């Protein structure tokens, strides 16, 4: 059945994959379908909560139906067959013949996944891929026949629109019932919940109709063109399918006979002649008319189209066509006029039709009155705006360009405003004020065009939560507040992954199992709340669970064990600080690692990603009560508010996000308040010690101002506060962020540049980078072994390096941050595992890498080395270790390193000069990977899995 008759004549004729026209259709289809699928996931989950909700069911049904119809037409038979069985099952569910139970939901979700998979295959390779979905099809089929006692008539009726594609050609034998002008019942008012669907339908249909008109005219010129016919057929079919579903029966009826006629034309059974074209155009007009009625009054109007239906029916046979041709006036002529002015011309048509059916004058009058009403309604509508005119699709690139231009305009505006005080001309002042106003509004307006509701990415979470809770045997209810909160498209993309990770984490680690919850006297069903809202020019996203909360003591123990913090630091930390340690790199508290989340590279990546877009993340947890994660991100990235400060004669911008407060100390106070601890300046801010950084020192600049006063900008980065001492504080300003060139990417202290009002440039300080450089937030990350931090450290200027040698007189270095421990092993402790030398180390088996052998240094072979003791540098990740065997450990130095020479051999990143000696900087990653390829896989896999989400 699913071998549709539509595609072959397109594909077989062409012989090639598709022609360009098809490519466009397919792209459109992909975009549409992806959108639909996201919606579908959400709907299915909703439906599982409210199995009886026919609205949701109908919406799902419609989506699948659209996908099926389109892919049948394009010729994706596999996709169509999957969608087809899904549709059949859905129709039974919708009609109440079957009930929705978890297996059915799962099967339907599996279907959605299968469709998505095929879509991505289509996107990539233009074919459906080779995966076999017959099992899924079988499951779906079985799930609908389990209760096959259900009345077959009901299902048959519902499936009608779906099957119409296949049935169309067959109907030639019995055209009568289709064309029968049975009295069409006045359509019901549309359900309010349907409104959005109907609006969408209207927009779509209007677009389609315009195209239809054009296609039909073209077709008349070129009657043999099957491409055009196919396109027309598809359009009408879509309209028919949708309106059948929404309950617009009159519209459906008209579209249906039109579709039958088109089907025959397409299959070459009938030829297109002027009467047929006219009738089809009349049909298009009728549809348009009904659509405008629907738009204004939410019903199909009272106009009777049965005559048109009869005409179209007659045209299905050549005999009928002749008959129609002999009485041309009623059907075709008025229709032709109607085409020019549908709304106005409609009255006479109706009257005429009514006459022909010998209706009573009273009835007729009533009709006229009603049409009058309708026209009034149409006028009303014109005052507002029709649905189709109120939205257009715009390429994101155009929006990006607009955004850049507006950025430029903002700069120009700022520049002009600076001249205003000097130019005393009143009209100039007025004009620039106007410019100021308009620019601000323009900026806001353009920004709005790029805004998207956060609901767009939330819509997939119900699915995530459902699948997860099923997988781990928990009951979790997902609630969402503030779905409509908008933020910039690029930011939406950027927070998608971190948010998904947080949600998964909350499900996996946050919410307890039903048993545990019952024990604690909580509802067995855990609640995960997503809340988004605007506050202070930022978007706040909260992920709240009512789970077990985080135990600070556990975190502390774990952190100590993993050497993320020292005992001394741990003693000083408050609960809140401890809880925030979960964001530290290389941290995972899950006692058992599940396949879901939490292998130590989770939350630090989340934080890195959020901070990358200028956001912050904070966690609050109460043991036994639950955990709240609060993510704050800016509305947009391109234009940010910033504080302008001066230091060493230069101007710098500090993003407002990092700013906490400003403190100014004058005269005596300035001298007294800054105290020193071992040479490190601190300031007592309301009783707490605030470490101070002098910006001019960090930037290696000469202090320019002789002012004794001290200006402290209190900043936060990585959850630490510190004070940045600057020479002057100017003002806050909206700045446009400009990226720095490739040559300057390595400067951690700056994140970009901006153009100031006077046309000069100012660098934007990267507060994070600055803090790391000055080591105010480095205490705990220094000991961190994980990737994120070590790479950041690498990018910095100063590094602590471990210097060692493989021979008597050579020097090699690796960053100390990569080193877990330095160990000595007895040569006799070395055992063999395969061809790998290993030692037992802390209850685990640790592979050894002979660096000398690996780097092919030559000299004495490691095995023959006479030393009884071997020196090993232990490198640990994910609780797995590798020992690098070296000859001697020389020193640990803190050095300003610059690569003097690039790498010239494997395993070496480059050559540097340390303590006036040439030293090779080792590429520890590649060495370890080479030695034990599986070593890093876990990390990579997880990272990939995260990306995929």
């Amino acid at each position, binding site marked *: 059945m699913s071998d549709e008759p539509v595609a072959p004549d397109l594909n077989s004729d062409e012989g090639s994959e598709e022609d360009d026209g098809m490519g466009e259709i397919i792209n459109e289809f992909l975009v549409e379908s992806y959108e639909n699928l996201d919606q579908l996931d959400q709907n299915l989950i909703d439906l599982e909560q409210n199995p009886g909700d026919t609205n949701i069911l109908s919406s799902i049904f419609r989506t699948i139906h659209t996908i099926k119809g389109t892919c049948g037409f394009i010729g994706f038979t596999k996709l169509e067959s999957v969608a087809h069985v899904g549709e059949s099952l859905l129709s039974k569910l919708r009609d109440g013949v079957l009930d929705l139970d978890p297996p059915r939901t799962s099967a339907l979700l599996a279907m959605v996944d299968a469709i998505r998979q095929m879509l991505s295959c289509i996107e990539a390779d233009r074919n459906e891929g080779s995966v076999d979905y017959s099992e899924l099809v079988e499951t779906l089929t079985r799930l609908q026949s389990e209760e096959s006692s259900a009345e077959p008539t009901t299902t048959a009726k519902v499936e009608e629109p779906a099957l119409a594609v296949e049935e169309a050609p067959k109907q030639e034998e019995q055209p009568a019932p289709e064309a029968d002008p049975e009295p069409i019942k006045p359509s019901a008012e549309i359900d309010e919940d349907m409104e959005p669907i109907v609006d969408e339908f209207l927009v779509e249909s209007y677009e389609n109709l315009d195209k239809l008109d054009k296609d039909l005219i073209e077709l008349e010129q070129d009657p043999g063109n099957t491409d055009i016919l196919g396109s027309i057929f598809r359009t009408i079919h879509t309209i028919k399918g949708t309106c059948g579903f929404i309950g617009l029966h009159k519209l459906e009826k008209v579209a249906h006979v039109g579709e039958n006629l088109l089907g025959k034309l397409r299959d070459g059974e009938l030829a297109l002649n002027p009467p047929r074209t006219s009738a089809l155009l009349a049909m298009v007009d009728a549809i348009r008319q009904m659509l405008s009625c629907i738009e204004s009054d939410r019903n199909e109007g009272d106009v009777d189209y049965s005559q048109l239906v009869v005409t179209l029916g007659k045209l299905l046979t050549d005999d009928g066509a002749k008959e129609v041709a002999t009485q041309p006036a009623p059907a075709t002529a008025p229709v032709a006029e109607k085409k020019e002015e549908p709304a106005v011309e409609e009255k006479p048509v109706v009257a005429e039709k009514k006459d022909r059916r010998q209706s009573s004058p009273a009835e007729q009058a009533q009709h006229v009155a009603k049409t009058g009403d309708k026209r009034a309604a149409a006028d009303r509508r014109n005052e507002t705006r029709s649905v189709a005119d109120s939205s257009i699709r715009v390429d994101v690139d155009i929006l990006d360009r607009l955004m850049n231009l507006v950025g*430029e305009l903002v*700069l120009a505006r700022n520049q002009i405003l600076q001249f205003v005080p000097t130019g005393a001309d009143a009209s100039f002042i007025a004009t620039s004020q106007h410019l100021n106003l308009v620019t601000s509004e323009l900026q806001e307006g353009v920004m709005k065009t790029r805004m998207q509701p956060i609901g767009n990415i939330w819509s997939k979470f119900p699915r995530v939560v459902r699948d997860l809770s099923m997988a781990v045997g928990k009951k979790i209810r997902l609630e969402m507040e503030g779905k409509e909160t908008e933020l910039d498209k690029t930011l939406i993309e950027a927070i998608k992954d971190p948010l998904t990770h947080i949600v998964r984490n909350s499900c996996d680690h946050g919410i307890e199992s039903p048993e545990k919850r019952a024990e604690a006297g909580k509802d067995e069903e855990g609640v995960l709340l997503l809340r988004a809202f605007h506050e202070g020019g930022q978007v706040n996203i909260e992920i709240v669970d009512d789970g077990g909360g985080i135990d600070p003591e556990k975190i502390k123990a774990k952190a100590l064990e993993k050497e993320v913090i020292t005992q001394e630091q741990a003693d000083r930390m408050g609960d809140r600080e401890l809880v925030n340690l979960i964001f530290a790199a290389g941290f995972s508290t899950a006692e058992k690692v599940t396949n879901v989340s939490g292998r130590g590279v989770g939350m630090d990546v989340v934080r890195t990603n959020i901070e990358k877009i200028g956001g912050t993340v904070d966690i609050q947890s109460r043991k036994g009560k639950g955990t709240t994660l609060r993510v704050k991100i800016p509305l947009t990235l391109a234009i940010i508010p910033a504080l302008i400060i001066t230091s*060493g004669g*230069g101007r710098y911008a500090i993003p407002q996000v990092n700013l906490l407060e400003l403190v100014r100390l004058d005269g005596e106070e300035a001298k007294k308040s800054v105290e020193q601890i071992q040479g490190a300046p601190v300031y007592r801010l309301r009783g707490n010690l605030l470490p101070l950084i002098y910006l001019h020192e960090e*930037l*290696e*600049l000469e202090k320019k101002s002789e002012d004794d006063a001290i200006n402290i900008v209190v900043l936060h980065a990585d959850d630490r506060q510190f004070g940045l001492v600057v020479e002057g504080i100017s003002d806050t300003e909206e700045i446009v962020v*400009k*990226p*720095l*060139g*490739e*040559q*300057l*990417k*390595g*400067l951690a*202290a*700056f994140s970009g*540049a901006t*153009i100031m009002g006077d*046309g*000069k*440039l*100012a*660098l934007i300080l990267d507060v994070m980078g600055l803090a790391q450089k000055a080591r105010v937030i480095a205490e705990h990350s220094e000991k961190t072994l994980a*990737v994120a931090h*070590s*790479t*950041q450290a*690498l*990018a*910095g*200027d100063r*590094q602590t390096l471990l210097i060692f040698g493989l021979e008597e007189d050579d020097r090699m270095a690796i960053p100390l941050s990569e080193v877990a421990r330095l160990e000595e092993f007895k040569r006799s402790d070395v055992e063999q595992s395969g061809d790998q030398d290993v030692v037992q180390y802390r209850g685990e088996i640790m592979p050894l890498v002979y660096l000398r052998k690996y780097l092919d240094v030559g000299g004495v072979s490691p095995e023959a080395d006479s030393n009884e003791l071997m020196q090993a540098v232990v490198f640990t990740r994910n609780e797995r270790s590798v020992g690098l065997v070296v000859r001697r450990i020389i020193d640990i130095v803190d050095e300003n*390193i*610059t*690569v003097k020479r690039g790498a010239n051999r494997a395993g070496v*990143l*480059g050559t*540097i000069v340390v303590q006036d000696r040439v030293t090779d*900087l080792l*590429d*520890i*990653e590649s060495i370890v990977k080479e030695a034990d390829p599986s070593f*890093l896989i876990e*990390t*990579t896999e997880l*990272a990939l899995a995260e990306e995929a989400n």
Partner: protein
Amino acid sequence: MSEEKQFCTFYLDNHFFGVAVETVQEVFRYQEMTHIPLAPPEIRGLINLRGQVITAIDLRQRLSISKLPEDKLPMNVVVRTGESVVSLLVDAIGDVLEVSEEVYERPPETIPEEVRKLVRGVYKLEGKLLLILDAEKAVNINTSVVEPASI
């Protein structure tokens, strides 16, 4: 077969340099620059070129030639390499020259290492030598110690 190539020429100290004309976006006079603290000495600062932020590279520094006297201001040759647009600071700007491949020669081994690294070749013109600057290499100044390891 004498193929002709076009070069935008400029002067550095007493050397005569050229860059392939298609890489040059524009040439302009000295413009005030914003100093970048911590940046290597070759990077003189940032320039606001009609709303675009451009890094200015001191070619004298880059080629280890002595500094330009204080009273002279350098000129900008804006080159486009790959994705990035960079301004090269030079002493003075010459003509666009069309030279024949016949007078081309690889840079001799004897010229200083710093210069040879960045010079693609030499055209023996009448009375002087035209050194062809490898713009891509010239702007490739890495401020970071090493590329962040790929994970």
